[in-house]
């Protein structure tokens, strides 16, 4: 049960980071420096990558 909830949590964090990344990139293209003045998109991208890897590993483990 805990594993299942953790799986959902990791999935939702990954979706959140994906939507955030896409949204912030679009906003930055339309309004230059709107996002980059306050948010480091490189850190956001790195976090997205980390959670993507965790999600893949976690899903594979559960399938295995």
């Amino acid at each position, binding site marked *: 049960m805990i594993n*299942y909830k953790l799986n959902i949590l990791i999935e939702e*964090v990954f*979706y*959140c980071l994906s939507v*955030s990344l896409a949204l912030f990139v679009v906003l930055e293209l339309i309004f230059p420096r*709107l996002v*980059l*003045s306050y948010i480091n998109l490189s850190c956001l991208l790195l976090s997205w990558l980390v959670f993507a890897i965790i999600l893949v590993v976690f899903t594979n483990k559960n399938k295995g």
Partner: protein
Amino acid sequence: MLNFRLKIRIVWIIALLAVVFWLAWQYVVPGGRVVYVKNFKQYNDFIGNLTPTDRLSGSRVIGNPVYFSLRVPRRFESAKLTVEFKNPDRLPIVEAGVLKDKRVWQYDLKPLGNLAINDLLKDWSVLWEDDVMLLQREKKYASLKDFLEDKPPAPEVAAYNYDYQTDFIFPAYQPAKEQRTICRPLLGAYQFYTYVKDEDLFFDFSFQDLNKNNDSDPIDVLVYYRDQEIAEEHLDDDGSDNRSLKLFLASMPEGVYKVSVRANGDIVTRAITTKQRKLSFINRLDLASAPEVSCGRNFVTDSRRVQAVTTLAASLGQVKIHQLSGSAFSEILDISKTYKQFETKQDLPLLSEVIVPSDGITFSGDGLFSFSEEEFFNPQTRKVDRNFNPEGVNYVLARYAPPVDKDGALTAAADFDLTNVYKEKGKHSFMISIPGLKADDDVDDGVEISEIKIELKGTSLFDKIRKIMGYK
């Protein structure tokens, strides 16, 4: 489980919307007021780094001037710049400015620190009215109004950041009967004072467009009387190499006039034909290189210090300076390198003659420049600048607030009007000016800047909506 996933999703959607709303709030600045702070310990996206780096040692300014940019998310009307700095080497003047006109590289400078006035504040009587201070060696006037109505003799008054009108009059002035032509070529923008009495104001400028860059090269000539603009002439860039502009104002009242020629570095003034007998260039003489012209190699100045710089190898050589009626040289400036500023080491006499090896040299100083002693006159009030000597001065007028001193750390503020200043790609350009500070001299002096804070004020969203609704 669906409930759990839904709850998590609602939470991150709300959080993301909150972040987007917050970003929009920072971008629009609906309250009309925002503050940006740069303390050199962490990156700031709005206040740029100080440049150029060869005038800096960390956050210590070792050369003059330095610049920084301010990126603004939208239009603001005013800026209050607060600078925290240390001045252990007692550099006399520290000022800050915002770029008003890129074409003539004009900065609106405001004071941050003036040591001469700070020292006078300890011993002289001080009178404050609004943001103006009147310092008196011995208290004579009870109010600024009394002082301005009485108008003590001009040599006894000095001013700083204050336009003190003295109604300068030449008692024995006689207008010239014939026109004359000044054929010393001048590069770019310049300003000069002239005097009119019982005559018209007439100047015929002949310009040459070097066309070194592809930008348009318009020319503007403005005339000021008692600090008010009274005439303006504009000359478009018609693509030709040679252009001329006539300035004619009939039957002008007696007094001092300031003429400002606004042009970029592509324009050379080849000749000025005029009937005016008096012509003094303000603070700067940029002699363009014109080897085919032979119109003399000297000029006079009342500057206490003179700086010279050239970009041309052919203009290197010795500049000789001597007291106007004497023969021995006071000083020799050996301009031995291009792109390096050379300065006289000692105070020059009241009026000096400067003999240059060739044109193509830019001279600057704290006084005025003329091409002959007959043309020279100085209607300006004495300034409390870095070479100020209070001897003979009994009154100082200044629009200046001394910095707050906290254990050697000084905090000073200056207000700027942003409504008509230059902005490029959403950025304003600021400058910190410390006259006389050089990075390439042997003196290890500088000003340590610890923090720059800028408070911007503009129309709020509410006022903007009211304004729009008001038109419907």
